[in-house]
Structures are given as C-alpha cells and as structure tokens.
C-alpha cells in the first residue's frame, strides 16, 4: 500500500514470529503451545502477503491460502490428538508428556 514500506510488514511479521517461538519454547500448556504454532503461521502468512503485494503477484496470497488450509487440517488433527492425550494421561502439561525419551 502507498506509504507503508515493505520492511514494516516484515518487521511486524518477524516480531510476531518471535512471539510465537517464545510461546512455543516457554509455555507449558500443550494447547497454548499449539496456539503459538498458529501464531507463527500467521506471522509467515503476513510476510507472504506483503511480498505478494510488493511484487504485484497473486502467488504469495495463494501460499498463504494453502497455509490456512494446512493449518485448518493440522488444527483438526492436532486437537483430536490433544483430546486423546488428555483422555489417556489426564494432563495438558507438556513436560509431563515425556514418555518418548531415551
């Protein structure tokens, strides 16, 4: 858009991505962790769309579209997994789900 440098969008995208990473690394609730992933995806989408706008192409938007589709599929399956985990282990603490070690 006129007057808004591309870099601003990319900065915002980077900041949101960083927030997502922080959530992923530092949060203990598995659902919140999952939401942090969505936050990262959103941040990346913003980059895609900003580049698409900058280059005057529609391709970046298509990528963002596919990211959304994949995110929807991922959310459906991921949440089903979380529900199953919760049924079996009665916890959402990510650090307690550590039976896949050693």
């Amino acid at each position, binding site marked *: 858009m006129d007057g808004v440098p591309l870099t601003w969008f990319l900065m915002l995208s980077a900041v949101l991505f960083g927030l997502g*990473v922080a959530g*992923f*690394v*530092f949060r*203990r609730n*598995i659902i919140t*962790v999952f939401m942090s992933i969505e936050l990262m995806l959103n941040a990346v989408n913003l980059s895609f769309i900003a580049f698409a706008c900058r280059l005057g192409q529609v391709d970046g938007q298509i990528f963002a579209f596919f990211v959304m589709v994949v995110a929807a599929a991922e959310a459906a399956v991921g949440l089903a997994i979380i529900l199953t985990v919760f049924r079996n282990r009665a916890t959402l603490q*990510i*650090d307690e*789900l*550590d*039976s*896949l*070690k*050693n």
Partner: protein
Amino acid sequence: MQHLWLIPLFPLAGFLVNGLMGRRASKAFVNAVAIGTVLLSFLWTLKTLAALAPLETPHLERYFAWIQVGDLRIGYDLALDRLSAVMLLVVTGVGLLIHIYAIGYMGHEGGYYRFFAYMNLFMFFMLTLVLAANFLLLFVGWEGVGLSSYLLIGFYFLRHSATTAGNKAFIVNRIGDFGFSLGILLILVNFGTLEFAEVFSKVAAMPIEVSAGVLTTIALLLLVGATGKSAQIPLYVWLPDAMEGPTPVSALIHAATMVTAGVYMVARSSVLYLHAPLALDCVAWIGVLTAFFAATIGLTQYDIKKVFAYSTISQIGYMFLALGARAFGAGIFHLWSHAFFKALLFLGAGSVIHAVGQQDLRYMGGLRRHAPVTFWTLLCAAAAIAGVPFTSGFFSKDEILLAAHHYSPWMYWVGVVTAAMTAFYVFRAIFLAFFGEFRGEGHPHESPPVMTLPLIALGVLSLVGGFFNVARWLEPEPTLAHHDTALVVVSVAAGLAGIALAGVFYVLRPGLADVVAERLGFLYRLVYNKYFVDEVYQALVVKPLVGGSRDVLWQGMDVEVIDGAVNGVGLRARGLGRVLRLLQSGYIRSYATWVLLGALGALLAMSWAGGGR
C-alpha cells in the same frame, strides 16, 4: 504407425487379469482371457503384416525414451522386419494353438489360472524379445522368457525334481546371460548405442583391422548367451531336465519359441557375425557338434519327452550349423518348420501321456488303435523331422545341408549321419508307442477335441509349412547358386534308412535292439547316461563352486569380513546413539529449542551465502 505395441500388450493384459483375479474366476473366464489375448495378438500380427506387406524395409516405431543419460538414448522402440515377422507368426500362431491345447491338457490340474497367467507372461516377453529394436529391450525379453520358463518348469512346485530343474534352467541360463550382457555392454562401449540399425551400420563401416578383435569378442560373448538360451554345447544340460514342466510348456517354450531365441538373436546380429568370421566358425562348430551328440543321446532314451528334448537340442544344433555356414535364411527356415513339427511332437507326446498316464516308452505300445488322431498327426511330425520328401523338414534341412556342404563338406556328412539318427530315434519313439502290444496298465483313450484339433492344425502345417520358403523370403538372392541333386538324394536316403532301421529294430524284429545294445556295451552305457556330462559338470563346476562358496565366500568373506564390518558399524552406531540419546529428553520444549537453534543456523548460513539480496 501400426501400433506394434499392442501385440505384446495383449498377453500382458491377460497376465495381469489372470494373475490378479484368476484365482476366484471361473475356468471359462480364465480360458477366455488367456486364449483371447493371444488370439488378439495373433490377429493384430496378421493385420499389421497385411498392412505392411511386402515388408521390404524394416518398420520402426518409437514410443518413449526408456533410458536417457547424456547422449545415450535407449527407447522403448519396436521394429518389424521380415525376420521378426517370421518369428511373430511362429510365436503367436503356434502359441495360440498350444494355448488352446492346454485347455484340455491342463483341465484337471491345480493352479489353472496360474499356468495361463505364466503362459501369457511368457508370450509378452517373447513378443517383446522378437519386436525389440535395440539390444537392451531384446535383453529384457530375453530375461523375461527365462523367468517365465523358470516359473513354468517349476510349475509343479510340490515336486522336488521340478523345482530343481527350474533352478538348473535358471542358473545355466544365467551363465549364458552373463556373457550376453557383457556382449551388450561391449557394444555400448564401442558403438555408443544399442539400436540394431545404428550398431549394424557402424559395424559395416568399421575397418577390418579395428573390427576383428572387438567384433569377435562381442560375437563370442553374444554366442555364450545364445548357447545358454538355445541349449547348445556346453550349456545344453538344462533343457532335458526342463521337461519337468507341463507338456504344453515344453512344446511352446522348450521347443517352438524360447529356445530358438538364440538362433533369432544370431540371425538378427548377422551383420555383426559376418564381420567376425572366427565367431561364425565357432557357431558352426557348436552347431554341428551339438546336433550330433544330442542325436546320439536321443537314440537311447526311454522317456518320450526326453527323446524329443534331445531332438530339440539336436535340431537347434542344425540351425546353428546353418547360421555358422552363413546361411541365415536357412537357419530361420528350419526354425520355422521346426516350430511346427517339434511343437506337434511335444503336443502329441502330451496326448500320449494323457492317454496312458506314463512317460516311459517301455510301458506304451499299440496306441495306434486307441489314439488314431494322435498317431496320424505324430506320424506327420515324424515324417517332417526325418526329412521325408516334400514335408516341411525336408525343405529346411535340405537348405541347411546344402549350405553346410558349401561351407565345409565334412560337416555335411556329420549332418547326414545326424539326420539318419534323427529319423531313427523319432521313429523308434513312434514305433515303441504306437505299434505292437500295449505294455502299460489301464485303458488308453484318445484326447478330447480341444487337444486333437491343434494337433491336426500343426500336422497340416508340418506337412505344407515348407512350401513357404522362408529362406528365399529372407534372402531374395540366394548365396548358393547351384542346387546339387546328389546331395539331396543322399540326405533323404539317410533319413529313410534311419526310418527303415527303426522299423526293423522295433517292429519287425523286436529284441534286436537289446542285443545290439548289449554288444555295444560300454558305448551304449556311455550314451545312455548322456556321456556323464551332468556328472562331470557336477564334479568339475558345481562341487568346487558350492564348496568354495561355503568355505571362502560364506564362512570367510561373509561371516568374517562383511558381517564383522556391518556389526562393527552397528556397534559403533549404538555407542554413538548411547551418547546422542541424551538429546532425546522427551521434552517437546527441548526439541523446540533445538529446532530454534537449527533455524538460526539455517538463517545464518543463508545470509552468509548471500541470500536475502
């Protein structure tokens, strides 16, 4: 575009349908698919030939690049010329008749669908072999027919002898194929292409001093493959054992089509061989020796299928003799007539076996009355193979012997003696089976029409097949100008003498044969035991090979070195894993941190490499 690809495709479709769904399908369905696809192939062959007649120049069809590496392009290309047209007619026509015959012969066997699926698979590979426009595709067909041959020899896989015979055929063929593939590689290295037309034009353009060594090596290596596939000395030992397979298989694969693939291949490479005279001399030697020795063994065998198997080896020896004598057309001519009468001999033998449930000639006899159709058709075939005038075998054998005489007179005389022996052992089998009193048990009976009709068709073809002179068709300008009547008379007389001798030994004076055998003593035992070739091979090749494999390769190489190395690597990996396992904390957040580290690394690597600009 004549859509040549359809010809091999039909049997392949039949193989897939029967192989995948045949188990649950009815016999009628399996029959319809198996016969129908071969019939379609046959009809399409006829249509194609009619469209392309008179086929004076080869017809090439390119479909797609199979292998494309640098300049090398090996395509899935099919070609049709007169040589492959003859082969096509033999394969699809005789194949069709044998398929029909098999309905009756295999009617009560288990694995019915499996049998026909394999037969169709064989047809696919054989047609690929015949139609291939380059050496590699030919090799595909070559190996494929070997595979189907192995599968069909071991069809009665519950019989130990059948699986052993299958293995033997496969392994012996492998030796030949090794040479063959080396030959193909040498062609590729020297000419940079595998396409027949290009290779042969480059061969023809090669100066003689360059070509002699290379071409002779190539031709000899190809010949190794041919001897393996076509059961010639020294690799013929698998064919008699291959009679363990069902009789239609023996007729189709081990008499009419597959075993003649070597002849076809040498004829196909005739240009190459003509530029390697030494190799061609080898072909002639191998041919004449095989023809003679196999015929002598055939004299003494009592298993009807073994008799015909040695006869096949001997007859293919004739074909090789023709090829070696530079009479390629004559060789293919004999291939053509041989396909009819030898398929008929096997099918007739199958009918006899079907009638008495027995393969041993000593327990047959007098079947003339019980199985008249079988008798008369077999008689046609026997007449043809014995070279009785104006049957198909007469014309083709005549061509060969003439060429042999032109090439080297002593080979002609060996050929004549072999012809006499051929007539003798074939009629010996006929007389033992059909004359005299029935010596076996049970009630012999004629086969059903579905079996006798193909016999009749092949009988007619055996009698009249020679009037279509394949040799002239393939080589319009005959290499031999003169036609020596005296030589023809001699060979015919030899054949008739063989028949007469057989008649004396087994019809007029039964018992004389045993007396003669006793007189000959050692010689008879030597021939009866097939010159102990199997035993010699066992002692000289198999034993050392197996022993060496066990002690050196298995215990020494495999267990000590390879296993040691593999296990050592495994142990190291486990040791390393014990350390790296500490990373596997089970905490997702730790993993996330590692991912973060990786992402950072990737980012830095990218910006260091100049990305982001």
